[in-house]
């Protein structure tokens, strides 16, 4: 029984660690403010996982209560942070974090974006063609027999 508990604990802790790691990577490398914040939330989820695991291991509700607190705090943080992000957006009209480099040292060059290869434009959405109302649509035979997608 003890092994099972330990194994469970092991697994959850590692999954939590993985989540924290992934969230960390996202926080560090993305440039959209919202995405950065999202990654932070991911980290919080990882921590919650660990807390739940410990709570079960120690047979103590404290962990779960703390997770509840985390959820509440995440909510509060989301509210405030998003309000701030909105304010920043209103100043520069963009969600790019690289627009805000004023805190750098005077002699450091700013981050400069290199030209990116042009993105292939998204294909225009294919809207279904509907016949006018009251008219029975004529469906070709191949479509009835064979459809490319489910």
């Amino acid at each position: 029984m003890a092994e099972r508990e330990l194994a469970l604990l092991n697994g959850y802790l590692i999954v939590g660690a993985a989540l924290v790691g992934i969230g960390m990577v996202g926080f560090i490398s993305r440039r959209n403010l919202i995405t950065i914040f999202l990654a932070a939330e991911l980290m919080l989820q990882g921590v919650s996982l660990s807390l739940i695991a410990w709570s079960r291991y120690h047979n103590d509700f404290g962990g779960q209560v703390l997770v509840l607190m985390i959820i509440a705090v995440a909510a509060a943080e989301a509210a405030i942070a998003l309000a701030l992000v909105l304010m920043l957006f209103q100043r520069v009209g963009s969600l790019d974090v690289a627009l805000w480099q004023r805190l750098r040292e005077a002699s450091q060059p700013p981050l400069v974006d290199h030209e990116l290869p042009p993105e292939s434009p998204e294909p225009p959405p294919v809207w279904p063609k509907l016949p006018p109302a009251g008219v029975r649509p004529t469906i070709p035979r191949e479509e009835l027999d064979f459809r490319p997608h489910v």
Partner: protein
Amino acid sequence: MSDVRWLVWIGCALGGLGLWCSLPPRGASSRALGGVLGFSGLGFLGAALPGLADGVSQVVFWILASVTILAAAAAVTFRNPVYCAIWFGLALAGTAGLFLFQGAQFLAVATVVVYAGAILVTFLFILMLAQPSGRARYDRVSVEALVSAASGAILVGVLATTVLSVLASSDARQHALQVPPHERQQAILAEDHVRQIGVHLFTTYLVPVQLVGVLLFVALVGAAVIGARGNRAPENLSAPSGGWTVQKSEEVATPPLGRNHG
């Protein structure tokens, strides 16, 4: 023990490599490769874990864990921020499932309701307000992808090896035996779990609950204030002293609310 460590490190390395391959500005094929690498890394990590007793629990746990982790990786890697948010929602679902697996029913539901239902929706609102056309230039670029992925991998590796080594020691086993299973059945894994947690919330943890209430209230007021004060004319950033310049000329418009370029 050491081969478990090797497994962990290999898994982390593969995962990191996969992340690096998937982060923007990499193309689609690179991202596919990244996915494969990440999956194999997960496999190694999974192999490093000590196994749960019965097969069903093991499989369920693995499925839930891999779904969560892969969804998290996707949330971090995709270009379109809305997609990121959606994948985050899936990750939240995964964690809710994991909570359930541990017996934390209330929290599982709370996660889905509050996190996925409220916070995620708020995210999406802001995204829609700020970036309705979807992908922007800055979403297709990342900052120091290699270093970030490498340090993330190292972080996970360090944490994982620490956990595994600590929990494999005899002290841990001693500790684990201290709580007999039937006690656990009665407390944390009890049938009336919600009642139990409610009792604890309102007796042992009353003060933190009240404080959380106050915190939420303060956050509410704060958000309102910030939001209200933000309705001012935008700054002119034509000569960015701290700003950002692009090598090809691309104007950074200072539009009123809602208008921007993608």
